[in-house]
């Protein structure tokens, strides 16, 4: 599949249309540092070519009243790639690969608040770039799992060491993955769903 040029598609291909029966959508956010493989993961499980939604933000420090006409100097474009999986004829799942910096999260209204949960994709060569993301999710009460994207030259830590290093509660799943492989990325999503299910069961046992 060719992911190039996905930013200039005039409209969905015929096979990319949702059925008219599609009633509702849910979303999962894949979050992680630059180059950690978010878009790769989105692309490996998505039924459509990954698409990009962009948002423009003004730089901090610009006054509210005087940015009129000065946009070009202060504007930053932030892109977010996403994909889609049809669950049933009525239900659709969207996956958003989101930059790790929290200041970008507000650009897309309700991105995390409305999400079922999040996958934190990490690269063990740069473990510390995920620290802040994990903390932000904890603060917001967004349930998440950790997926370790296995780059060939990345250090391999035992899961227990990673759990300690990331200071994660025992119940939070940590799994290895290869974001390029559909089956592996799907397993990550399944792990998140099972985790969410266990949380739901714990809250409302029946």
């Amino acid at each position, binding site marked *: 599949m060719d992911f190039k040029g996905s930013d*200039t*598609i005039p*409209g*969905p291909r015929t096979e990319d*249309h*949702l*059925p*008219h029966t*599609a009633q*509702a959508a*849910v*979303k999962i956010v894949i979050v992680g540092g630059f180059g950690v493989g978010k878009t790769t993961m989105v692309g490996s499980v998505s039924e459509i070519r990954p698409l990009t*939604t*962009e*948002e*423009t*933000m*003004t730089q*901090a420090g*610009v*006054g509210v009243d005087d940015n009129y006409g000065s*946009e070009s100097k202060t*504007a930053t474009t932030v892109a977010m790639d*996403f994909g*889609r999986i*049809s*669950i049933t004829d009525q*239900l*659709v*799942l969207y996956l*958003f690969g989101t930059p790790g910096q929290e*200041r970008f999260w*507000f*650009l*897309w*209204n*309700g*991105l995390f*608040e*409305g999400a*079922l949960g999040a996958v934190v994709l990490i690269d063990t060569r740069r*473990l510390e770039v995920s620290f802040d993301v994990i*903390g932000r999710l*904890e*603060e*917001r*009460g967004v349930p998440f799992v950790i997926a370790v994207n296995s780059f060939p030259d990345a250090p391999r*830590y035992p899961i227990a*060491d990673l759990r300690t*290093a*990331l*200071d994660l*509660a025992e119940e939070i799943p940590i799994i290895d993955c290869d974001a390029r492989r559909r089956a592996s990325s*799907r397993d990550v*999503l*399944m792990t998140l*769903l099972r985790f969410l*299910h266990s949380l*739901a*069961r714990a809250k409302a046992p029946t």
Partner: protein
Amino acid sequence: MTPPQRRRRYPGQDTPEPPPAPFKEGKEGKEGKEGDAKAPERLYVVAGPDGERADIDLVTLIVARADPPPSATPEQTAMLRLCTAPLSVAELSAYLSLPFSVVTVLLTDMLTTELVHARAPIVRQALPDRSLLEAVMHGLQRL
């Protein structure tokens, strides 16, 4: 080899619902009114006079209710052509190459004038719906 060490954080509130008030991390955050602080500074201010926006999520599904009327703007016409079948706001933003906030503003107007219909997303509840989670799992298993 020892990995670097993080320290755990905790939710500001006991329960994740209602969603925490949007952060006002920006220096200009305090300028915003209580209710609409969610929207940071926008480049484009193309809303109506009151700037009111419909509650539109990235995964709200939009469906056209009518053919483009003669009075439709080029953006509205493009939007209506795209969503003859349901399409998420995120996809509309991508195909139209318009920022999410701009699409939201356009859709607010089109919802008011009943050119389009919105199918609301299912958002995370305090108590997630287990049957919903099970449906998603079944769907993923078929991948």
